[in-house]
């Protein structure tokens, strides 16, 4: 499969008029709530005469939310990808020359065929699907993202893990030449490379996706090109980006954020409005583009698909 580099996409191609209109919509709501009555005259684009071109609607899949997708401009400029920088705008700015091709992924540990694969070979023949998922960040904001990718279960099936394998561990690329934060000497924000993990039943849950695209286009660098994990019932930090290693193991992996602050971030990181982060509430979230906060749903609204995996567990302890 040909993996297009995200830099092949010009910004004029991805910023639709709809997006543009949508942002003005936000300012209008915000201004109204702030009591700025004259905002409509200050911002001419607020005029309703601006034609909103309808976003081409993909066919609705089994797990798709019908909520309005977040504009691509927001999905590609508001990112937590600490390798590229701490501020939300850093990844878009610092990822322009990221080399996501050629790309190889090392498959290791308790697996029948441990090997290093060319990305094209690894995912050849896996059918791509569109999935419109909610994404809930542990920082209490959320988006709706139209991903493109394949179920992680399909890849795992092909790799044939041994029966002894109970967990999958993923690693992000370690390359200080490309990731400015990885070469920081003092006040290192995290231990590199970034590590994430899933229990085997979580990894093979039909919702778990390896994404290679957004809005039908190749995954932009700042969103984790060329391939990343998407587990919509978990907080966003579980969605490890730019994966270079998949390791099957019988020991529960220590994911990066858990290692950084074990009392704040756990292994499971399931979205749970009833278990607060020690420093802030998880009961509500701000959907990007909306003014008022909305209630956060158990398992981010995916309880039907995932709740049974945790029925025996104390989610207060296993956060």
């Amino acid at each position: 499969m040909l993996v297009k580099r995200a830099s092949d996409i010009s910004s004029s191609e991805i910023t639709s008029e709809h997006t543009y209109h949508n942002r003005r919509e936000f300012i209008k709501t915000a201004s109204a709530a702030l009591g700025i009555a004259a905002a409509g005259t200050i911002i001419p684009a607020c005029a309703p005469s601006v034609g909103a071109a309808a976003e081409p609607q993909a066919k609705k899949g089994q797990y798709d939310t019908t909520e309005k997708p977040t504009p691509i401009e927001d999905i590609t400029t508001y990112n937590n990808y600490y390798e590229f920088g701490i501020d939300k705008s850093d990844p878009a700015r610092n990822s322009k020359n990221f080399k996501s091709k050629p790309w190889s992924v090392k498959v290791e540990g308790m697996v029948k065929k441990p090997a290093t694969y060319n990305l094209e070979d690894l995912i050849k023949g896996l059918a791509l699907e569109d999935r419109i998922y909610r994404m809930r960040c542990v920082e209490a904001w959320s988006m709706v993202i139209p991903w493109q990718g394949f179920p992680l279960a399909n890849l795992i099936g092909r790799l044939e893990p041994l029966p002894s394998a109970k967990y999958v561990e993923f690693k992000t690329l370690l390359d200080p030449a490309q990731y400015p934060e990885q070469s920081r000497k003092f006040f290192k924000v995290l231990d590199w490379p970034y590590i994430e993990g899933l229990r085997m039943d979580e990894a093979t849950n039909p919702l778990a996706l390896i994404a290679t695209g957004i809005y039908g286009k190749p995954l932009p660098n700042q969103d984790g090109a060329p391939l990343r994990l998407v587990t919509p019932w978990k907080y966003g930090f579980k969605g490890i980006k730019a994966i270079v290693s998949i390791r099957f193991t019988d020991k529960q992996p220590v994911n990066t954020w858990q290692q950084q602050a074990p009392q704040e971030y756990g292994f499971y990181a399931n979205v749970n409005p009833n278990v607060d982060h020690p420093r802030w509430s998880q009961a509500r979230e701000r959907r990007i583009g909306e003014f008022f906060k909305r209630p956060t749903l158990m398992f981010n609204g995916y309880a039907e698909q995932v709740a049974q995996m945790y029925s025996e567990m104390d989610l207060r302890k296993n956060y």
Partner: protein
Amino acid sequence: MPKFNRWSILKPVVFLACLGPLAWLAYAALTDQLSANPIKDITEFTGIWTLRFFMITLSVTPLRRMTGWNSVVRIRRMFGLFTFFHGFLHLMTYVWLDQFFMFSEIVKDIMKRPFITAGMTAFTLMLPLAVTSTKKWIGRLGGKRWQLLHRLVYFGAAAGVVHYYWFEKSDIQRPVGYGALLGVLLLFRAWHAVRNRERGLKPAAADLPKHASQI
């Protein structure tokens, strides 16, 4: 007619400069230059400028002592009030934009979350200072007591830095930087007080405001 001096020009210039950050924020908001989460941007912007104004305010006295430029103390009150102003806006973004006046939630937050407790402490400490910043209040309290009260600013600034440190997820470089700067500014005062004592000067006697116009 009041005697003309350079402060009658300098003061309005400094005042306008102090409005610069907010003017920039308003411009960025109206021209769609904030991020996809503008409420978070506004909250963080007003928060960081509160800390910066704390540092500016607390730099006036060291600057004055090092340079002997005594009249610089005339703009200290303005800096102090700008600190309070930004702190108030920061608090309002939380009360209004973030929690939307859900006071039960806010009270829960203050009790439960140390970083919010620290932030509210900083604001609470600033409140009496803003109220008693007028000439009338200096007269009412007397210079010595007024000065003692206004030492609360050290604790307010420290609470602000702690608030920032506890808020950060993992990048502590910036809060630690502000902590270090505050440390230097406070150590300078300690060093100066010790030196005065050794020279047999009454502690801080030279610093009491002689005229209200010096505040």
